[in-house]
């Protein structure tokens, strides 16, 4: 593990055309890292995330991705992700190919990936229309012992998984507190792991059974306070639900969105400036 700046970490590990998972389930979404990917003009990414959320709406609208693996693509409690829809429905700014799963399938696919298994197994009762669009990614099979029907789901192994967490120590052990989602599995499944954290400390001060990603799993740690905003970091700041509500208008049309990205992402040097521009720094 190496401690470095976020621009260095992205430049070193995220290349055009890679598959990249920015994970974190509602909590600890790595917004700062997503913005840095936009800022560096990276293109052709295959983005992977259970819930694309605002971060992928921003990245897709900014044109960094041409593929998306996901399981629920909305603005939670608010409505649509307009940029995601525009990319799928109209190919703007880039035609987005989607690889769609259910949450259970995505969780299973990450878990298989973490265990370096080629596929995962789920119980086989799901007569829906999704399977027809999942060629090569899900298939029915029978239990070799009981004959019971099961569904096989192909593993997901991102080239890079990026996550935000509360703390890292100087060795690079990363502590996640609170809602952890599928971050641990996405990290173990990845070729490289980049973690942004609220603080780097001498001692994590964690309970023995805490969720800690070991330093030998982590390729780079960058200290980015506020790096999950407008998502949140339990113990540091709350989710800015008002921003999520406001996003619906910002993202609704292409010009408004493009202007917002120019003003708030590509037009600022770093996440700190972004936060200050929004006036959310105390």
């Amino acid at each position: 593990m190496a401690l470095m700046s976020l621009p260095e970490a992205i430049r070193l590990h995220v290349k055009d055309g890679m598959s990249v998972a920015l994970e974190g389930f509602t909590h600890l979404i790595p917004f700062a890292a997503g913005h840095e990917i936009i800022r560096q003009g990276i293109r052709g990414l295959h983005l992977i995330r259970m819930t694309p959320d605002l971060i992928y709406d921003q990245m897709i609208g900014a044109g960094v991705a041409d593929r998306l693996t996901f399981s629920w693509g909305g603005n939670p409690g608010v409505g649509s992700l307009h940029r995601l829809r525009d990319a799928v429905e109209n190919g703007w700014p880039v035609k987005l190919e989607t690889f769609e799963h259910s949450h259970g399938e995505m969780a299973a696919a990450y878990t298989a990936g973490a265990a370096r298994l080629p596929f995962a197994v789920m119980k086989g009762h799901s007569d829906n229309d999704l399977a027809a669009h999942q060629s090569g990614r899900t298939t029915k099979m029978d239990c070799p012992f009981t004959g019971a029907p099961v569904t096989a789901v192909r593993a997901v192994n991102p080239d890079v998984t990026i996550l935000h967490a509360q703390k890292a120590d100087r060795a690079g052990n990363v502590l996640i507190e609170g809602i952890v989602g599928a971050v641990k599995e996405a990290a173990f499944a990845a070729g490289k792991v980049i973690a942004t954290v609220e603080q780097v400390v001498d001692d994590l001060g964690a309970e023995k059974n805490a969720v800690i990603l070991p330093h030998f799993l982590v390729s780079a740690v960058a200290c980015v306070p506020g790096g999950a905003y407008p998502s949140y970091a339990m113990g540091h700041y709350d989710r800015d639900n008002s921003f999520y509500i406001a996003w619906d208008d910002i993202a609704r049309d292409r010009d408004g969105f493009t202007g917002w990205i120019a003003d708030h992402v590509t037009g600022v040097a770093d996440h700190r400036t972004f936060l200050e521009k929004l006036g959310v720094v105390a």
Partner: protein
Amino acid sequence: MSYTLDEMMTVAAARQLKDGAVCFVGIGLPSAACVLASRTHAPNLVLIYESGTVETAPEVLPLSIGDGELAATATSVVPLPEIFSHYLQGGRIDVGFLGAAQIDRFGNLNSTVIGPYDAPKTRLPGAGGAPEIATHAKEILIVMRMTKRGFVDSLAFRTSSGHLAGNGERKAKAYPGHGPQALVTDFGILRPDPESDELVLTELFEGVSAADAVAACGWPLRVVDSPTRVVPPSDTELETLRALNARTKAAHAAKVTLSLN
């Protein structure tokens, strides 16, 4: 006290929940119904969100499925894959809540797409955990406003399984859960016919006629011979729900500030 249809729907949904049941909850009206139930007739209701919060007891309703409030008030927070494998697929959930853009008469749901999948007219958010909830929760409670576009003869896309084609198909396929047992609408409550599995109108809200419901529904809605009337929300139910909604509104409007180093 007078009340809105939204309030009636929420109260009606809350009343479906038995004390002690383990509920898999979604955001929006399902959260409101569950919290209302746990603060009225079902103090031992167990609320689980797919974000991994087990036995949570939010003071304000979450905007997202993983708001901090849910973690802060939970007995424990587990990784999401464990929620789906150990809790949901593991058969530990009594009641799962679902909603969707479209429903058919057998409680199958569409939350994926309107129009062709590869060239969609409307791209909806997608499945989320709905397929697993629909399959594994012992019973499913659905809450949806009744419209012709939403209550359809034939789904544009089946995202999650209700009673499939009815007439016992779900049971014949040995699904772990029993499928939709109640559908709360803004006209009243539909329940599956014991033979055909078709959702039929069994209970009506005050001030609504069965004919109103039939007219609003996109499939030829069947009505039981003498639908019962749903008791209007009690003062306690309304006061509890309104206080919850007021707390929630204030919380969601609160300005977030970050104290950074």
